[in-house]
Protein backbone atom coordinates (compact mmCIF):
# COMPACT_ATOMS: atom_id res chain seq x y z
CA UNK A 1 0.00 0.00 0.00
CA UNK A 2 2.56 2.54 1.14
CA UNK A 3 4.78 2.01 -1.89
CA UNK A 4 1.91 2.69 -4.25
CA UNK A 5 0.86 5.98 -2.71
CA UNK A 6 3.27 8.15 -4.66
CA UNK A 7 1.42 8.18 -7.98
CA UNK A 8 -2.26 7.72 -8.53
CA UNK A 9 -2.97 4.97 -10.98
CA UNK A 10 -6.18 4.85 -12.96
CA UNK A 11 -7.39 1.95 -10.87
CA UNK A 12 -6.91 3.86 -7.64
CA UNK A 13 -8.56 6.94 -9.07
CA UNK A 14 -11.54 4.86 -10.14
CA UNK A 15 -11.81 3.20 -6.73
CA UNK A 16 -11.78 6.63 -5.17
CA UNK A 17 -14.50 7.86 -7.48
CA UNK A 18 -16.66 4.79 -6.94
CA UNK A 19 -16.33 4.94 -3.18
CA UNK A 20 -17.16 8.64 -3.12
CA UNK A 21 -20.25 7.77 -5.12
CA UNK A 22 -21.13 5.00 -2.68
CA UNK A 23 -20.84 7.34 0.30
CA UNK A 24 -22.93 10.00 -1.41
CA UNK A 25 -25.44 7.28 -2.30
CA UNK A 26 -25.58 6.20 1.34
CA UNK A 27 -26.35 9.76 2.40
CA UNK A 28 -29.13 10.05 -0.15
CA UNK A 29 -30.58 6.69 0.89
CA UNK A 30 -30.54 7.91 4.48
CA UNK A 31 -32.58 10.97 3.56
CA UNK A 32 -35.15 9.20 1.36
CA UNK A 33 -37.30 8.01 4.29
CA UNK A 34 -37.46 11.53 5.72
CA UNK A 35 -38.63 12.95 2.40
CA UNK A 36 -41.14 10.15 1.90
CA UNK A 37 -42.56 10.37 5.42
CA UNK A 38 -43.00 14.13 5.16
CA UNK A 39 -44.49 13.83 1.66
CA UNK A 40 -47.12 11.29 2.70
CA UNK A 41 -47.88 13.16 5.91
CA UNK A 42 -48.63 16.31 3.92
CA UNK A 43 -50.48 14.47 1.18
CA UNK A 44 -52.73 12.43 3.44
CA UNK A 45 -52.76 14.59 6.54
CA UNK A 46 -53.70 17.96 5.07
CA UNK A 47 -56.84 16.44 3.58
CA UNK A 48 -58.35 15.73 6.96
CA UNK A 49 -57.46 19.11 8.46
CA UNK A 50 -60.37 21.47 9.03
CA UNK A 51 -61.70 23.74 11.74
CA UNK A 52 -63.96 20.91 12.84
CA UNK A 53 -60.95 18.59 13.06
CA UNK A 54 -59.21 20.78 15.64
CA UNK A 55 -62.22 21.97 17.59
CA UNK A 56 -64.13 18.76 18.23
CA UNK A 57 -63.47 15.74 20.37
CA UNK A 58 -63.42 12.22 18.96
CA UNK A 59 -67.00 10.94 18.98
CA UNK A 60 -66.07 7.32 19.45
CA UNK A 61 -68.48 6.37 16.66
CA UNK A 62 -67.17 3.72 14.34
CA UNK A 63 -69.46 4.80 11.52
CA UNK A 64 -70.40 8.33 10.66
CA UNK A 65 -68.54 11.36 11.93
CA UNK A 66 -65.42 10.23 13.83
CA UNK A 67 -64.89 13.69 15.31
CA UNK A 68 -61.62 15.57 15.61
CA UNK A 69 -58.56 15.56 17.78
CA UNK A 70 -59.15 18.38 20.24
CA UNK A 71 -58.89 16.17 23.32
CA UNK A 72 -55.74 14.54 21.95
CA UNK A 73 -54.00 17.88 21.40
CA UNK A 74 -55.04 19.18 24.80
CA UNK A 75 -54.06 15.95 26.53
CA UNK A 76 -50.64 15.86 24.89
CA UNK A 77 -49.95 19.46 25.87
CA UNK A 78 -51.10 18.96 29.47
CA UNK A 79 -49.28 15.71 30.06
CA UNK A 80 -46.06 16.83 28.42
CA UNK A 81 -46.16 20.11 30.36
CA UNK A 82 -46.46 18.27 33.67
CA UNK A 83 -43.75 15.81 32.61
CA UNK A 84 -41.48 18.75 31.79
CA UNK A 85 -42.25 20.36 35.13
CA UNK A 86 -41.13 17.17 36.86
CA UNK A 87 -38.16 16.13 34.77
CA UNK A 88 -36.45 19.42 33.94
CA UNK A 89 -35.75 20.64 37.52
CA UNK A 90 -34.67 17.17 38.65
CA UNK A 91 -32.59 16.58 35.54
CA UNK A 92 -30.79 19.90 35.81
CA UNK A 93 -30.33 19.32 39.55
CA UNK A 94 -28.65 15.98 38.96
CA UNK A 95 -26.48 17.53 36.26
CA UNK A 96 -25.50 20.34 38.65
CA UNK A 97 -24.50 17.74 41.21
CA UNK A 98 -22.43 15.86 38.65
CA UNK A 99 -20.62 18.95 37.41
CA UNK A 100 -20.30 21.08 40.55
CA UNK A 101 -19.83 18.51 43.30
CA UNK A 102 -19.48 15.03 41.92
CA UNK A 103 -16.86 15.58 39.24
CA UNK A 104 -14.73 12.47 38.98
CA UNK A 105 -15.80 10.92 42.27
CA UNK A 106 -16.81 7.27 42.27
CA UNK A 107 -20.40 8.03 43.24
CA UNK A 108 -20.71 10.56 40.42
CA UNK A 109 -19.47 8.11 37.83
CA UNK A 110 -21.95 5.52 39.06
CA UNK A 111 -24.77 8.07 38.77
CA UNK A 112 -23.53 9.06 35.31
CA UNK A 113 -23.45 5.44 34.21
CA UNK A 114 -26.97 4.76 35.41
CA UNK A 115 -28.30 7.91 33.79
CA UNK A 116 -26.82 6.54 30.57
CA UNK A 117 -28.47 3.23 31.29
CA UNK A 118 -31.81 4.99 31.73
CA UNK A 119 -31.42 6.53 28.28
CA UNK A 120 -31.36 3.03 26.88
CA UNK A 121 -34.38 1.68 28.75
CA UNK A 122 -37.19 1.05 26.27
CA UNK A 123 -40.04 3.47 26.75
CA UNK A 124 -42.53 0.64 27.09
CA UNK A 125 -40.67 -0.61 30.15
CA UNK A 126 -41.15 2.79 31.77
CA UNK A 127 -44.82 2.46 30.96
CA UNK A 128 -44.92 -0.99 32.56
CA UNK A 129 -43.19 0.30 35.65
CA UNK A 130 -45.64 3.14 36.14
CA UNK A 131 -48.50 0.76 35.42
CA UNK A 132 -47.27 -1.54 38.18
CA UNK A 133 -46.45 1.10 40.75
CA UNK A 134 -49.17 3.68 40.17
CA UNK A 135 -52.05 2.19 38.21
CA UNK A 136 -52.16 -1.34 39.60
CA UNK A 137 -51.29 -0.78 43.22
CA UNK A 138 -53.88 1.89 43.70
CA UNK A 139 -51.45 3.89 45.77
CA UNK A 140 -52.43 7.57 45.28
CA UNK A 141 -55.69 6.53 43.67
CA UNK A 142 -56.12 3.56 41.41
CA UNK A 143 -56.93 3.46 37.74
CA UNK A 144 -55.62 5.29 34.74
CA UNK A 145 -54.88 8.99 34.95
CA UNK A 146 -53.22 11.70 32.93
CA UNK A 147 -50.69 12.51 35.63
CA UNK A 148 -49.50 8.92 35.67
CA UNK A 149 -48.78 9.26 31.97
CA UNK A 150 -46.84 12.41 32.81
CA UNK A 151 -44.73 10.56 35.37
CA UNK A 152 -43.91 7.86 32.79
CA UNK A 153 -42.93 10.54 30.27
CA UNK A 154 -40.89 12.34 32.94
CA UNK A 155 -38.89 9.17 33.62
CA UNK A 156 -38.17 8.94 29.93
CA UNK A 157 -37.17 12.61 29.64
CA UNK A 158 -35.08 12.73 32.81
CA UNK A 159 -31.90 11.13 31.42
CA UNK A 160 -32.11 13.23 28.25
CA UNK A 161 -32.32 16.45 30.26
CA UNK A 162 -29.54 15.35 32.61
CA UNK A 163 -27.08 14.33 29.92
CA UNK A 164 -27.58 17.44 27.81
CA UNK A 165 -27.45 19.72 30.88
CA UNK A 166 -24.24 18.08 32.06
CA UNK A 167 -22.56 18.70 28.72
CA UNK A 168 -23.60 22.37 28.76
CA UNK A 169 -22.62 22.95 32.40
CA UNK A 170 -19.19 21.47 31.72
CA UNK A 171 -18.73 24.07 29.01
CA UNK A 172 -19.02 26.92 31.52
CA UNK A 173 -15.39 27.93 31.93
CA UNK A 174 -13.81 27.28 35.30
CA UNK A 175 -12.16 30.69 35.26
CA UNK A 176 -15.64 32.12 35.64
CA UNK A 177 -16.40 30.07 38.74
CA UNK A 178 -12.97 30.84 40.15
CA UNK A 179 -13.41 34.56 39.57
CA UNK A 180 -16.76 34.59 41.37
CA UNK A 181 -15.42 32.51 44.25
CA UNK A 182 -12.35 34.74 44.52
CA UNK A 183 -14.66 37.71 44.88
CA UNK A 184 -16.08 36.01 47.94
CA UNK A 185 -19.33 34.68 46.52
CA UNK A 186 -20.50 31.50 48.23
CA UNK A 187 -20.81 28.37 46.18
CA UNK A 188 -24.61 28.47 45.86
CA UNK A 189 -24.53 32.04 44.61
CA UNK A 190 -21.90 31.13 42.07
CA UNK A 191 -24.10 28.33 40.85
CA UNK A 192 -27.34 30.26 40.75
CA UNK A 193 -26.04 33.60 39.51
CA UNK A 194 -23.06 32.68 37.36
CA UNK A 195 -23.09 29.05 36.23
CA UNK A 196 -26.79 28.62 35.49
CA UNK A 197 -27.30 31.95 33.67
CA UNK A 198 -24.22 31.34 31.54
CA UNK A 199 -25.44 27.90 30.60
CA UNK A 200 -29.08 28.94 30.17
CA UNK A 201 -29.39 28.81 26.36
CA UNK A 202 -27.90 25.33 26.28
CA UNK A 203 -30.14 24.17 29.12
CA UNK A 204 -33.17 25.46 27.24
CA UNK A 205 -32.10 23.62 24.09
CA UNK A 206 -31.63 20.34 25.94
CA UNK A 207 -34.94 20.68 27.75
CA UNK A 208 -36.87 21.48 24.59
CA UNK A 209 -35.37 18.49 22.80
CA UNK A 210 -36.40 16.30 25.73
CA UNK A 211 -39.92 17.74 25.54
CA UNK A 212 -40.01 17.03 21.81
CA UNK A 213 -38.97 13.47 22.51
CA UNK A 214 -41.61 13.04 25.21
CA UNK A 215 -44.37 14.48 23.04
CA UNK A 216 -43.95 11.76 20.44
CA UNK A 217 -43.92 8.79 22.80
CA UNK A 218 -46.82 6.36 22.66
CA UNK A 219 -45.74 3.28 24.55
CA UNK A 220 -45.55 4.81 28.05
CA UNK A 221 -49.00 6.36 27.64
CA UNK A 222 -51.10 3.45 26.44
CA UNK A 223 -51.30 1.83 29.84
CA UNK A 224 -50.99 4.84 32.08
CA UNK A 225 -53.26 7.51 30.62
CA UNK A 226 -54.83 5.27 27.94
CA UNK A 227 -57.46 6.76 25.67
CA UNK A 228 -60.38 9.05 26.23
CA UNK A 229 -62.77 10.88 23.99
CA UNK A 230 -63.60 13.94 26.03
CA UNK A 231 -61.31 16.88 26.58
CA UNK A 232 -60.42 17.39 30.19
CA UNK A 233 -58.22 19.67 32.21
CA UNK A 234 -58.29 17.27 35.13
CA UNK A 235 -55.06 15.28 35.25
CA UNK A 236 -56.76 12.75 37.52
CA UNK A 237 -58.90 11.55 34.62
CA UNK A 238 -58.00 9.23 31.79
CA UNK A 239 -56.50 11.41 29.14
CA UNK A 240 -56.24 11.31 25.39
CA UNK A 241 -53.00 12.09 23.57
CA UNK A 242 -51.99 12.47 19.95
CA UNK A 243 -49.74 9.39 19.80
CA UNK A 244 -52.29 7.17 21.56
CA UNK A 245 -55.04 8.47 19.31
CA UNK A 246 -52.98 7.72 16.20
CA UNK A 247 -52.04 4.27 17.47
CA UNK A 248 -55.67 3.48 18.10
CA UNK A 249 -56.90 4.83 14.76
CA UNK A 250 -54.30 2.97 12.70
CA UNK A 251 -55.75 -0.31 13.89
CA UNK A 252 -59.27 0.55 12.70
CA UNK A 253 -60.45 -0.72 9.36
CA UNK A 254 -62.27 2.48 8.55
CA UNK A 255 -61.02 5.09 6.12
CA UNK A 256 -62.22 8.09 8.07
CA UNK A 257 -60.48 6.93 11.24
CA UNK A 258 -57.31 6.28 9.29
CA UNK A 259 -57.69 9.75 7.79
CA UNK A 260 -57.89 11.16 11.28
CA UNK A 261 -54.70 9.26 12.15
CA UNK A 262 -52.88 10.95 9.25
CA UNK A 263 -54.20 14.37 10.25
CA UNK A 264 -53.19 13.81 13.87
CA UNK A 265 -49.76 12.55 12.79
CA UNK A 266 -49.17 15.67 10.72
CA UNK A 267 -50.19 17.81 13.71
CA UNK A 268 -47.87 15.90 16.03
CA UNK A 269 -44.90 16.05 13.67
CA UNK A 270 -45.40 19.80 13.17
CA UNK A 271 -45.50 20.37 16.93
CA UNK A 272 -42.28 18.40 17.35
CA UNK A 273 -40.59 20.18 14.44
CA UNK A 274 -41.45 23.57 15.93
CA UNK A 275 -39.96 22.48 19.27
CA UNK A 276 -36.82 21.33 17.47
CA UNK A 277 -36.48 24.58 15.58
CA UNK A 278 -37.00 26.70 18.71
CA UNK A 279 -34.43 24.53 20.49
CA UNK A 280 -31.87 25.17 17.78
CA UNK A 281 -32.56 28.90 17.79
CA UNK A 282 -32.07 28.98 21.56
CA UNK A 283 -28.68 27.32 21.32
CA UNK A 284 -27.65 29.82 18.67
CA UNK A 285 -27.87 32.56 21.30
CA UNK A 286 -25.40 30.73 23.46
CA UNK A 287 -21.97 32.26 23.98
CA UNK A 288 -20.28 29.17 25.30
CA UNK A 289 -21.30 26.34 23.06
Amino acid at each position, binding site marked *: *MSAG*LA*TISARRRNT*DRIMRGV*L*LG*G*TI*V*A*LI*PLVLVLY*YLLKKGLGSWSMHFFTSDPTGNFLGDPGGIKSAILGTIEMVALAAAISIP*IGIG*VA*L*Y*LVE*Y*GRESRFASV*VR*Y*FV*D*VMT*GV*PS*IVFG*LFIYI*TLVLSGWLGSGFAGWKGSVALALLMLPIV*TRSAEVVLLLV*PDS*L*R*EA*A*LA*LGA*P*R*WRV*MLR*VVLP*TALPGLITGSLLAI*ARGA*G*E*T*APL*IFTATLANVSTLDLNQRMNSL*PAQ*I*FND*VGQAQDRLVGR*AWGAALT*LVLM*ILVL*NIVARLASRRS*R*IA
Partner: protein
Amino acid sequence: MQRESDLRLMAADSGTALGGSRPSFGRLLPSGLPDRLLKWGLTALAAGVLVLIAYFFYKLIDQAQPAISKFGVWGFVTTNDWDVSRNIYGAAPLVVGTLITSAIALLIGVPVAVAAALYVTELCPRRLRAPLTVLLELLAAVPSVVYGLWGVFVLIPKLKPAEEWFGRTFDFLPFVGKTVAGPNYFIAGLILAIMILPIVSAITREVMATVPSDHKEAALALGATRWEMIRTAILPYSRAGISGAAMLGLGRAIGETIAVTLVIGNAPTIGKQIFDQGYSLAAVIANEFGEAANVPIHRAALIEAGLVLFVLTLLVNGIARWVVNRGVRGRRAAADAPAPAVGV
Protein backbone atom coordinates in the same frame (compact mmCIF):
# COMPACT_ATOMS: atom_id res chain seq x y z
CA MET B 1 -25.31 42.77 39.75
CA GLN B 2 -22.89 44.73 37.60
CA ARG B 3 -20.09 42.48 38.69
CA GLU B 4 -21.90 39.40 37.66
CA SER B 5 -22.73 40.61 34.22
CA ASP B 6 -19.07 41.48 33.75
CA LEU B 7 -18.23 37.96 34.77
CA ARG B 8 -20.58 36.64 32.20
CA LEU B 9 -18.82 38.72 29.57
CA MET B 10 -15.56 37.24 30.68
CA ALA B 11 -17.10 33.85 30.20
CA ALA B 12 -17.73 34.71 26.62
CA ASP B 13 -14.15 35.82 26.11
CA SER B 14 -12.56 32.82 27.68
CA GLY B 15 -14.99 30.46 26.08
CA THR B 16 -12.29 28.60 24.23
CA ALA B 17 -10.28 27.79 27.33
CA LEU B 18 -12.16 24.65 28.21
CA GLY B 19 -9.66 22.22 29.53
CA GLY B 20 -9.94 18.70 30.69
CA SER B 21 -8.16 19.60 33.91
CA ARG B 22 -10.38 21.21 36.49
CA PRO B 23 -8.21 22.56 39.25
CA SER B 24 -8.46 22.26 42.94
CA PHE B 25 -11.46 24.38 43.75
CA GLY B 26 -13.68 21.41 43.14
CA ARG B 27 -12.47 20.21 46.49
CA LEU B 28 -13.03 23.54 48.20
CA LEU B 29 -15.17 22.93 51.24
CA PRO B 30 -18.51 24.69 51.03
CA SER B 31 -19.22 26.92 53.95
CA GLY B 32 -22.45 28.18 55.38
CA LEU B 33 -25.86 26.62 55.59
CA PRO B 34 -27.21 27.31 52.07
CA ASP B 35 -24.12 25.74 50.57
CA ARG B 36 -24.45 22.62 52.61
CA LEU B 37 -28.17 22.41 51.90
CA LEU B 38 -27.57 22.75 48.18
CA LYS B 39 -24.78 20.22 48.17
CA TRP B 40 -26.73 17.60 50.08
CA GLY B 41 -29.93 18.39 48.23
CA LEU B 42 -28.27 17.83 44.88
CA THR B 43 -26.46 14.73 46.12
CA ALA B 44 -29.74 13.33 47.39
CA LEU B 45 -31.29 14.02 44.00
CA ALA B 46 -28.52 12.10 42.27
CA ALA B 47 -28.83 9.26 44.78
CA GLY B 48 -32.57 9.34 44.15
CA VAL B 49 -31.98 8.40 40.54
CA LEU B 50 -30.05 5.31 41.64
CA VAL B 51 -32.73 4.37 44.16
CA LEU B 52 -35.37 4.80 41.47
CA ILE B 53 -33.60 2.41 39.11
CA ALA B 54 -33.13 -0.16 41.88
CA TYR B 55 -36.80 0.11 42.86
CA PHE B 56 -37.72 -0.17 39.20
CA PHE B 57 -35.87 -3.45 38.88
CA TYR B 58 -37.26 -4.78 42.14
CA LYS B 59 -40.84 -3.95 41.18
CA LEU B 60 -40.58 -5.62 37.77
CA ILE B 61 -39.18 -8.81 39.30
CA ASP B 62 -41.78 -8.71 42.06
CA GLN B 63 -44.70 -8.41 39.66
CA ALA B 64 -43.32 -10.98 37.23
CA GLN B 65 -42.96 -13.48 40.07
CA PRO B 66 -46.03 -15.62 39.25
CA ALA B 67 -44.74 -16.15 35.71
CA ILE B 68 -41.15 -16.67 36.82
CA SER B 69 -42.15 -19.37 39.30
CA LYS B 70 -44.38 -21.09 36.75
CA PHE B 71 -42.27 -20.91 33.60
CA GLY B 72 -38.82 -20.06 34.99
CA VAL B 73 -36.52 -17.62 33.25
CA TRP B 74 -34.60 -19.86 30.88
CA GLY B 75 -37.71 -21.91 30.18
CA PHE B 76 -39.63 -18.71 29.49
CA VAL B 77 -37.25 -17.44 26.83
CA THR B 78 -36.66 -20.81 25.15
CA THR B 79 -40.15 -22.31 25.03
CA ASN B 80 -41.72 -21.89 21.62
CA ASP B 81 -45.34 -21.71 22.67
CA TRP B 82 -47.17 -18.46 23.38
CA ASP B 83 -50.80 -19.38 23.73
CA VAL B 84 -53.03 -16.94 25.52
CA SER B 85 -56.12 -19.15 25.40
CA ARG B 86 -54.36 -22.00 27.24
CA ASN B 87 -52.43 -19.61 29.50
CA ILE B 88 -49.10 -20.98 28.36
CA TYR B 89 -46.41 -18.42 27.90
CA GLY B 90 -43.15 -19.37 26.26
CA ALA B 91 -41.50 -16.29 24.82
CA ALA B 92 -39.14 -17.85 22.26
CA PRO B 93 -41.14 -16.51 19.26
CA LEU B 94 -40.97 -13.02 20.75
CA VAL B 95 -37.27 -13.19 21.55
CA VAL B 96 -36.54 -14.51 18.07
CA GLY B 97 -38.69 -11.80 16.49
CA THR B 98 -36.91 -9.09 18.47
CA LEU B 99 -33.50 -10.45 17.49
CA ILE B 100 -34.33 -10.97 13.80
CA THR B 101 -35.82 -7.50 13.31
CA SER B 102 -32.93 -5.91 15.19
CA ALA B 103 -30.40 -7.81 13.10
CA ILE B 104 -32.09 -6.66 9.88
CA ALA B 105 -32.10 -3.12 11.24
CA LEU B 106 -28.37 -3.26 11.91
CA LEU B 107 -27.53 -4.86 8.56
CA ILE B 108 -29.37 -2.11 6.69
CA GLY B 109 -29.03 0.82 9.05
CA VAL B 110 -25.39 0.74 10.11
CA PRO B 111 -23.71 0.78 6.67
CA VAL B 112 -26.00 3.58 5.53
CA ALA B 113 -25.43 5.55 8.74
CA VAL B 114 -21.65 5.17 8.52
CA ALA B 115 -21.66 6.15 4.83
CA ALA B 116 -23.71 9.23 5.63
CA ALA B 117 -21.43 10.14 8.53
CA LEU B 118 -18.32 9.75 6.35
CA TYR B 119 -19.84 11.80 3.57
CA VAL B 120 -20.90 14.59 5.91
CA THR B 121 -17.61 14.79 7.80
CA GLU B 122 -15.12 14.18 5.00
CA LEU B 123 -16.51 14.65 1.52
CA CYS B 124 -19.39 17.06 1.35
CA PRO B 125 -18.94 20.74 0.51
CA ARG B 126 -18.58 22.80 3.67
CA ARG B 127 -21.77 24.73 2.98
CA LEU B 128 -23.83 21.53 2.91
CA ARG B 129 -22.44 20.13 6.12
CA ALA B 130 -24.74 21.88 8.60
CA PRO B 131 -27.98 21.40 6.63
CA LEU B 132 -27.22 17.71 6.02
CA THR B 133 -26.52 17.18 9.70
CA VAL B 134 -29.82 18.82 10.63
CA LEU B 135 -31.72 16.71 8.11
CA LEU B 136 -30.18 13.50 9.41
CA GLU B 137 -31.14 14.51 12.94
CA LEU B 138 -34.69 15.27 11.85
CA LEU B 139 -35.13 11.56 11.17
CA ALA B 140 -34.99 11.16 14.93
CA ALA B 141 -37.68 13.79 15.45
CA VAL B 142 -40.38 11.74 13.73
CA PRO B 143 -42.25 9.81 16.44
CA SER B 144 -42.35 6.03 16.44
CA VAL B 145 -46.12 5.90 15.93
CA VAL B 146 -45.81 8.04 12.79
CA TYR B 147 -43.24 5.65 11.33
CA GLY B 148 -45.67 2.88 12.16
CA LEU B 149 -48.55 4.66 10.44
CA TRP B 150 -46.38 5.27 7.38
CA GLY B 151 -45.18 1.68 7.44
CA VAL B 152 -48.70 0.27 7.51
CA PHE B 153 -50.23 2.40 4.82
CA VAL B 154 -47.28 3.19 2.53
CA LEU B 155 -44.34 0.86 3.03
CA ILE B 156 -46.22 -2.44 3.29
CA PRO B 157 -48.36 -2.05 0.13
CA LYS B 158 -45.65 -0.34 -1.95
CA LEU B 159 -42.88 -2.77 -1.10
CA LYS B 160 -44.91 -5.92 -1.51
CA PRO B 161 -44.21 -6.38 -5.26
CA ALA B 162 -40.50 -5.80 -4.68
CA GLU B 163 -40.46 -8.30 -1.82
CA GLU B 164 -42.27 -10.87 -3.94
CA TRP B 165 -39.83 -10.41 -6.77
CA PHE B 166 -36.92 -10.72 -4.36
CA GLY B 167 -38.43 -13.81 -2.77
CA ARG B 168 -38.90 -15.51 -6.15
CA THR B 169 -35.46 -14.61 -7.47
CA PHE B 170 -33.40 -15.30 -4.38
CA ASP B 171 -35.39 -18.23 -3.09
CA PHE B 172 -32.17 -20.28 -2.83
CA LEU B 173 -30.74 -18.00 -0.14
CA PRO B 174 -31.32 -18.99 3.48
CA PHE B 175 -34.17 -17.15 5.21
CA VAL B 176 -35.67 -15.93 1.95
CA GLY B 177 -38.99 -17.42 0.91
CA LYS B 178 -41.52 -17.04 -1.86
CA THR B 179 -44.53 -16.24 0.26
CA VAL B 180 -44.71 -12.65 1.41
CA ALA B 181 -46.98 -11.69 4.27
CA GLY B 182 -48.08 -8.04 4.30
CA PRO B 183 -46.62 -7.16 7.67
CA ASN B 184 -43.42 -9.13 8.24
CA TYR B 185 -39.98 -9.26 9.85
CA PHE B 186 -38.33 -7.48 6.94
CA ILE B 187 -40.68 -4.47 7.01
CA ALA B 188 -40.25 -4.19 10.78
CA GLY B 189 -36.47 -4.39 10.38
CA LEU B 190 -36.52 -1.76 7.66
CA ILE B 191 -38.53 0.66 9.81
CA LEU B 192 -36.15 0.00 12.70
CA ALA B 193 -33.19 0.67 10.39
CA ILE B 194 -34.64 4.10 9.62
CA MET B 195 -35.20 4.76 13.30
CA ILE B 196 -31.68 3.84 14.43
CA LEU B 197 -30.02 5.68 11.55
CA PRO B 198 -29.85 9.11 13.23
CA ILE B 199 -28.29 7.90 16.49
CA VAL B 200 -25.75 5.62 14.80
CA SER B 201 -24.83 8.36 12.36
CA ALA B 202 -24.54 11.03 15.07
CA ILE B 203 -22.26 8.95 17.29
CA THR B 204 -20.17 7.83 14.31
CA ARG B 205 -19.72 11.48 13.34
CA GLU B 206 -18.70 12.29 16.91
CA VAL B 207 -16.13 9.50 16.92
CA MET B 208 -14.76 10.49 13.52
CA ALA B 209 -14.32 14.03 14.74
CA THR B 210 -11.75 12.69 17.22
CA VAL B 211 -9.48 11.33 14.49
CA PRO B 212 -6.41 13.60 14.69
CA SER B 213 -6.01 15.71 11.58
CA ASP B 214 -2.31 14.74 11.65
CA HIS B 215 -3.27 11.23 10.64
CA LYS B 216 -5.52 12.41 7.85
CA GLU B 217 -3.02 14.94 6.57
CA ALA B 218 -0.23 12.41 6.76
CA ALA B 219 -2.21 9.99 4.61
CA LEU B 220 -3.02 12.73 2.10
CA ALA B 221 0.57 13.95 2.07
CA LEU B 222 1.72 10.46 1.15
CA GLY B 223 -0.46 10.73 -1.91
CA ALA B 224 -3.52 8.86 -0.72
CA THR B 225 -6.76 9.60 -2.46
CA ARG B 226 -9.68 10.70 -0.28
CA TRP B 227 -11.04 7.18 -0.07
CA GLU B 228 -7.62 5.74 0.77
CA MET B 229 -7.30 8.36 3.49
CA ILE B 230 -10.69 7.29 4.86
CA ARG B 231 -9.74 3.64 4.66
CA THR B 232 -6.28 3.92 6.17
CA ALA B 233 -6.66 6.78 8.66
CA ILE B 234 -10.29 7.22 9.66
CA LEU B 235 -11.84 3.77 9.64
CA PRO B 236 -9.18 1.90 11.67
CA TYR B 237 -9.09 4.72 14.17
CA SER B 238 -12.82 4.91 14.71
CA ARG B 239 -13.61 1.20 14.41
CA ALA B 240 -14.26 0.77 18.13
CA GLY B 241 -16.48 3.83 18.21
CA ILE B 242 -18.50 2.69 15.21
CA SER B 243 -19.00 -0.70 16.86
CA GLY B 244 -20.24 1.08 19.95
CA ALA B 245 -22.58 3.23 17.89
CA ALA B 246 -23.98 0.11 16.24
CA MET B 247 -24.54 -1.44 19.66
CA LEU B 248 -26.41 1.65 20.83
CA GLY B 249 -28.52 1.38 17.70
CA LEU B 250 -29.13 -2.25 18.56
CA GLY B 251 -30.31 -1.22 22.02
CA ARG B 252 -32.78 1.17 20.43
CA ALA B 253 -33.99 -1.42 17.96
CA ILE B 254 -34.59 -4.04 20.65
CA GLY B 255 -36.71 -1.73 22.73
CA GLU B 256 -38.67 -0.04 19.96
CA THR B 257 -42.33 -0.79 20.43
CA ILE B 258 -45.06 1.01 18.62
CA ALA B 259 -43.71 1.07 15.07
CA VAL B 260 -42.83 -2.62 15.29
CA THR B 261 -46.22 -3.52 16.77
CA LEU B 262 -47.90 -1.97 13.76
CA VAL B 263 -45.83 -3.67 11.06
CA ILE B 264 -44.62 -7.05 12.36
CA GLY B 265 -47.93 -8.89 12.01
CA ASN B 266 -48.30 -9.91 15.66
CA ALA B 267 -48.30 -13.66 15.10
CA PRO B 268 -46.76 -15.50 18.09
CA THR B 269 -44.87 -18.02 16.02
CA ILE B 270 -41.31 -18.25 14.79
CA GLY B 271 -41.32 -17.36 11.09
CA LYS B 272 -39.24 -19.48 8.76
CA GLN B 273 -38.00 -16.60 6.64
CA ILE B 274 -37.78 -12.83 6.67
CA PHE B 275 -41.07 -12.27 4.82
CA ASP B 276 -43.07 -14.17 7.45
CA GLN B 277 -45.12 -12.58 10.18
CA GLY B 278 -43.79 -12.55 13.70
CA TYR B 279 -43.95 -10.86 17.04
CA SER B 280 -41.52 -9.05 19.31
CA LEU B 281 -41.14 -8.71 23.07
CA ALA B 282 -42.10 -5.05 23.10
CA ALA B 283 -44.99 -5.52 20.67
CA VAL B 284 -46.60 -8.27 22.72
CA ILE B 285 -46.65 -6.06 25.79
CA ALA B 286 -48.23 -3.17 23.91
CA ASN B 287 -50.83 -5.40 22.28
CA GLU B 288 -51.93 -7.76 25.00
CA PHE B 289 -51.85 -5.53 28.01
CA GLY B 290 -55.46 -4.54 27.75
CA GLU B 291 -56.76 -8.09 27.79
CA ALA B 292 -54.18 -9.23 30.33
CA ALA B 293 -55.17 -6.71 32.99
CA ASN B 294 -57.56 -9.17 34.64
CA VAL B 295 -55.61 -12.40 34.13
CA PRO B 296 -52.80 -12.39 36.71
CA ILE B 297 -50.65 -15.04 35.03
CA HIS B 298 -50.94 -13.40 31.61
CA ARG B 299 -50.06 -10.06 33.13
CA ALA B 300 -47.10 -11.55 34.97
CA ALA B 301 -45.90 -13.17 31.73
CA LEU B 302 -46.03 -9.81 29.97
CA ILE B 303 -44.12 -8.19 32.80
CA GLU B 304 -41.55 -10.98 32.59
CA ALA B 305 -41.30 -10.22 28.87
CA GLY B 306 -40.68 -6.60 29.86
CA LEU B 307 -38.03 -7.74 32.30
CA VAL B 308 -36.26 -9.77 29.61
CA LEU B 309 -36.41 -6.73 27.34
CA PHE B 310 -35.03 -4.52 30.10
CA VAL B 311 -32.12 -6.84 30.86
CA LEU B 312 -31.37 -7.28 27.15
CA THR B 313 -31.20 -3.52 26.56
CA LEU B 314 -29.16 -3.03 29.75
CA LEU B 315 -26.58 -5.53 28.54
CA VAL B 316 -26.39 -4.14 25.03
CA ASN B 317 -26.26 -0.53 26.21
CA GLY B 318 -23.76 -1.29 28.94
CA ILE B 319 -21.37 -2.84 26.43
CA ALA B 320 -22.05 -0.07 23.92
CA ARG B 321 -21.30 2.75 26.38
CA TRP B 322 -18.12 1.03 27.41
CA VAL B 323 -16.98 0.60 23.80
CA VAL B 324 -17.91 4.15 22.78
CA ASN B 325 -16.26 5.70 25.81
CA ARG B 326 -13.14 3.70 25.19
CA GLY B 327 -13.23 4.72 21.54
CA VAL B 328 -13.57 8.41 22.37
CA ARG B 329 -11.44 8.67 25.50
CA GLY B 330 -8.72 6.14 24.90
CA ARG B 331 -7.96 7.66 21.54
CA ARG B 332 -4.30 6.94 21.29
CA ALA B 333 -4.58 3.36 22.44
CA ALA B 334 -7.31 2.73 19.91
CA ALA B 335 -5.14 4.10 17.11
CA ASP B 336 -2.18 1.90 17.95
CA ALA B 337 -4.07 -1.32 18.41
CA PRO B 338 -7.55 -1.24 16.92
CA ALA B 339 -9.94 -2.97 19.25
CA PRO B 340 -11.62 -6.14 18.06
CA ALA B 341 -14.89 -5.18 16.48
CA VAL B 342 -17.92 -5.90 18.62
CA GLY B 343 -21.36 -6.18 17.18
CA VAL B 344 -20.66 -5.50 13.52
